[in-house]
C-alpha cells in the first residue's frame, strides 16, 4: 500500500485548482479520486511525478471541466430546472395579473363635462331618434345647455381627434389611458388641437348645435376598451 504524503496531496489539489475545479462538493471527492489513481500507478512502479502526469493526461485538457459541468448540470436537470421553469411561469403570471390589475385601476372619467346642473334630454341606450324618427342606439348622453357653455375634459388625457363630422358636428375625442376615451360633440367651437395633453376639468370647447341636432346640447360618450358605455355610470357625486 502506498499513501500519498501531505505535500503530494497538496500538489494534486493545486493542479485541480489550475484545472478550474471550483465546485466544492466535487472538488474534494475528485481530489481523493485522483490521489487513488496516482497511488495505484505508483503501486505499479511509477514515480509520483510520472503517475501524476499519467493521471492528468488521462483526463485530457478539459476533461475535468467537462466532468464538473456535467455534475452540476445533472443536478439541475430535474429539480432546479423545474424550479426555474416554475418560477418563470409564476413570474409571467404575476406580470400579466399586475397588468390586468393596473388596467382595471385606470380611473374612469368621473367628472361631468359641464359645470352645474343640466337636463339630460336623451340618455344612453335605445331611443327614438328625434329627427330620424327611428329606433336607434344612442351611444352617449345629451345634456341640454345654452349655446357657448364651456365644455370640460372629464379626466386627464390626450386629444386624439378634434374635427368636424357630419352627424357629430364639431367633435373632440380624448384618450385618457389604455382603457378609456371620451367624446364630446355638437360643439360650436373646438378650443384644443390633436396631440395636446389635457388636464381633468380643463376647458376644451363650447356647447353648440353644429351637427344633426334639434337645439344646443352636448353629446357626450365614454368608450371603455373601444366600446361605448353609459357615461352616467362613472359620474362622481
Amino acid at each position: 500500500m502506498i499513501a500519498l504524503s501531505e505535500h503530494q496531496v497538496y500538489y494534486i489539489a493545486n493542479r485541480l485548482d489550475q484545472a478550474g475545479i471550483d465546485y466544492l462538493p466535487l472538488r474534494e471527492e475528485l481530489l481523493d479520486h485522483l490521489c487513488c489513481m496516482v497511488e495505484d500507478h505508483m503501486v505499479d512502479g511509477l514515480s509520483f511525478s510520472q503517475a501524476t502526469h499519467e493521471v492528468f493526461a488521462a483526463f485530457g485538457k478539459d476533461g475535468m471541466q467537462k466532468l464538473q459541468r456535467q455534475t452540476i448540470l445533472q443536478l439541475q436537470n430535474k429539480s432546479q430546472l423545474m424550479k426555474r421553469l416554475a418560477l418563470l411561469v409564476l413570474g409571467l403570471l404575476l406580470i400579466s395579473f399586475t397588468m390586468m390589475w393596473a388596467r382595471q385601476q385606470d380611473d374612469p372619467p368621473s367628472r361631468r363635462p359641464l359645470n352645474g346642473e343640466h337636463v339630460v334630454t336623451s340618455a344612453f341606450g335605445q331611443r327614438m331618434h328625434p329627427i330620424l324618427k327611428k329606433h336607434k342606439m344612442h351611444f352617449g348622453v345629451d345634456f341640454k345647455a345654452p349655446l357657448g357653455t364651456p365644455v370640460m375634459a372629464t379626466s386627464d388625457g390626450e386629444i386624439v381627434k378634434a374635427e368636424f363630422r357630419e352627424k357629430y358636428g364639431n367633435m373632440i375625442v380624448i384618450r385618457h389611458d389604455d382603457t378609456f376615451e371620451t367624446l364630446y360633440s355638437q360643439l360650436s367651437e373646438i378650443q384644443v388641437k390633436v396631440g395636446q395633453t389635457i388636464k381633468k376639468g380643463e376647458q376644451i370647447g363650447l356647447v353648440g348645435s353644429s351637427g344633426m341636432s334639434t337645439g344646443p346640447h352636448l353629446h357626450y360618450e365614454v368608450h371603455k376598451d373601444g366600446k361605448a358605455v353609459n357615461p352616467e355610470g362613472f359620474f362622481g357625486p
Partner: protein
Amino acid sequence: MFSKELLKGTLKTIVLHLLEEQGKMYGYEIARYVRERSEGQLELTEGALYPTLHKLEADGLVATEKVQVGHRTRKYYRLTALGTEAAGRKREEFALFTATMRMILTPKWNT
C-alpha cells in the same frame, strides 16, 4: 468496451446494486470494482460516475459520509431506504429488459 449510450441507461442500476451489496463505497472504489468484476469489459469514466452519484444523492437515494483518510477526505456513499427500494426496482426492470431484448434478437424461424 461498451458504448456510452448502452452504459448510460444502466449506470444507476449498477451503482445502486453495488451499494446494496457492498454497504458503503466511495467513487474510486466503485469504478475499480466495476472494472475488476467485469474483467475489464466495463469502464466507468469519472465523467459518468460522479454526475450520477451526485444526482442519486440529490434525489435522496443515497446518503453520504465523509471520512478523513491520510491527508485527504473520502466521501462514502450508502443506500437510503428509498435507494434500497430503487435498487430492487431497477434490477427487476433490467431483467425484464434483457429478457425482452433476447426475445427480439433471437432469430425467429418460420416453420
